[in-house]
């Protein structure tokens, strides 16, 4: 087994094999260092924890992107005690400037591929996000939206089909529109389309002609009326005279009222005298009442002392 076929063994075998092994281990070590560098082992990072309802589609090593550029990487996914998913993300310090306290984080799932974690910062002047910050994350799932969208689309298409199908309302509307258009272009034009048939249109035209004739006669009537009302000896002039006469009557009435005022003043003085007389009558009445009470007492006394006094009591057997 010391002979390897017909291939000659070189003299510097040890050097060549050493070179190959050295090269292999250098390449392997270099690749491992490169992989560590790529994973961000040699750069300072800060931690960010996103709290989500679920972690579907999120996997380790996934990027956190800002404006389409990856600025962080998912390092750990765990389930918290409250049943919510915690997505821990390492963000290099040099890229942490894009994350502010007002930054909003979203997890979006497209139709193809895994989820994408995105950060949106509205105002870059806000205070920077501290290390170890914990933020809620908004979820948008295209796959969850598709069935709902398809159901809505289907009902919409059914409605459109009903509208556009034979016997549908759009067909009927178009037929009506066509009939109306034909009438508009007919003998009586838009009037025929509005009224629906030519007979009515003829009636309307006749009515308009009669209305014209009526207006002509009305204008003559108005001229005559104007003369009767506003002309000499008309209604207006008579009315003016009547008003003047009414004014004179009112003056006379005012004089009569003044005289009535005087009569009323006299009546008031008479009433004052009557009031004084009434007060004297009160005193007189009081004296009469006292005399009557005395007479009454006298009569009761006589009755008591009188021998044939009537017994008012009734004695039962």
């Amino acid at each position, binding site marked *: *087994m*010391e002979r*390897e*076929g017909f*291939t000659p*063994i*070189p003299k510097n*075998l*040890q050097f*060549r*094999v050493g070179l*190959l*092994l050295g*090269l*292999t281990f250098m*390449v*392997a070590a270099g*690749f*491992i260092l*490169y*992989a560590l*560098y*790529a*994973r*961000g082992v040699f750069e300072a990072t800060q931690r960010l924890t996103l709290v989500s309802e679920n972690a579907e589609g999120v996997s*380790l*090593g*996934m*990027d956190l992107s800002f404006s389409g550029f*990856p600025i962080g*990487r998912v390092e750990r996914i765990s389930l918290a005690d409250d049943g919510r998913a915690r997505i821990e993300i390492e963000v290099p310090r040099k890229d942490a400037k894009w994350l502010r306290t007002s930054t909003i984080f979203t997890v979006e799932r497209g139709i*193809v*591929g895994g989820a994408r974690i995105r950060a949106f910062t509205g105002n870059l002047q806000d205070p920077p996000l501290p290390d170890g910050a914990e933020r809620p994350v908004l979820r948008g799932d295209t796959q969850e939206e598709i069935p709902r969208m398809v159901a809505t689309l289907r009902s919409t298409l059914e409605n459109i089909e009903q509208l556009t199908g034979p016997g549908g309302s759009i067909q009927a509307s178009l037929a009506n529109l066509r009939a109306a258009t034909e009438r508009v272009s007919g003998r009586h034009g838009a009037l025929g389309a509005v009224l629906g048939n030519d007979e009515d249109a003829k009636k309307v035209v006749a009515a308009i002609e009669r209305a014209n004739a009526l207006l002509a006669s009305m204008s003559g009537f108005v001229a005559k009326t104007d003369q009767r009302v506003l002309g000499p000896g008309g209604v207006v002039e008579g009315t003016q005279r009547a008003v003047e006469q009414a004014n004179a009557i009112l003056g006379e009435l005012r004089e009569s009222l003044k005289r009535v005022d005087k009569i009323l003043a006299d009546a008031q003085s008479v009433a004052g005298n009557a009031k004084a007389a009434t007060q004297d009558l009160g005193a007189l009445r009081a004296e009469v009442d006292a005399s009557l009470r005395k007479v009454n007492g006298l009569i009761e006394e006589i009755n008591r002392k009188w021998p044939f006094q009537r017994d008012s009591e009734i004695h039962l057997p």
Partner: protein
Amino acid sequence: MSTPQAAAGWLRAWGRAALFAAAAAAAALSLSAYTARTRTLAMRQIYFNAWHVLPGFTVFMTLLSWVVIQITISLARDYGLAQFALELVFRAVVLELIPLLTAFYVALRSGAAIVTEVAMMRVSGGLDELLSAHIDPYEREFVPRIAATAVSVFALTIVSCTVVMFVAYLVTYGANPSGFAEFSRTVARVFGPWALTGLVVKCLAFGAVVAGIPIAAGLDATRDPESAPDAVMGGMVRLFVTLALIELISLAVKYV
């Protein structure tokens, strides 16, 4: 040959291969296996397995990977999935295809030679002479070859993977250095600690079976010259099955 007998023979052959693996592992742990003679033998094996074929093999892998990567990237761009193309190339070509092809290449080139050589030693009685001279063939002949083949497969795989990663960069971004950041992010995503450990373990396992199974199969030969072709054929089939099984287990551990 009836089916039960064939099955029994198949099981016996696998059992002998397993016993040989245990004996070889025990010999590898013995200090007496590491002598100047075994070191020279291992270096010779590495030279013939790896150094001698390195340029041609690297060129072949470059061309093959160039075509595969070009097809993958173009199709991914056509389907609008360009952002996943590089990751797919790393996972499929660098982590799976290159190590497996390397193992098959070394198996076809050296494994076939080893199984034939061991079978012929059995036929010619060379192994019996060693045993009668109180020389352990495991320590003196088998372990250095197995170790050297494992190192060879590892070296060829590492060099090929590195070249293929350069090819992947060139096909994806051209000679433009601005794609380096995105390339690095994809590397970080794919080549995690477990992926790298798995790659190293898989390469070493490939190398060990590429030498170990042919030697175990060669020992199945007898003094009868007609037993040698059977031993060679059985050894190569078992080698193929074992390589495929290792790849399958590796995929299952990573993705299932």
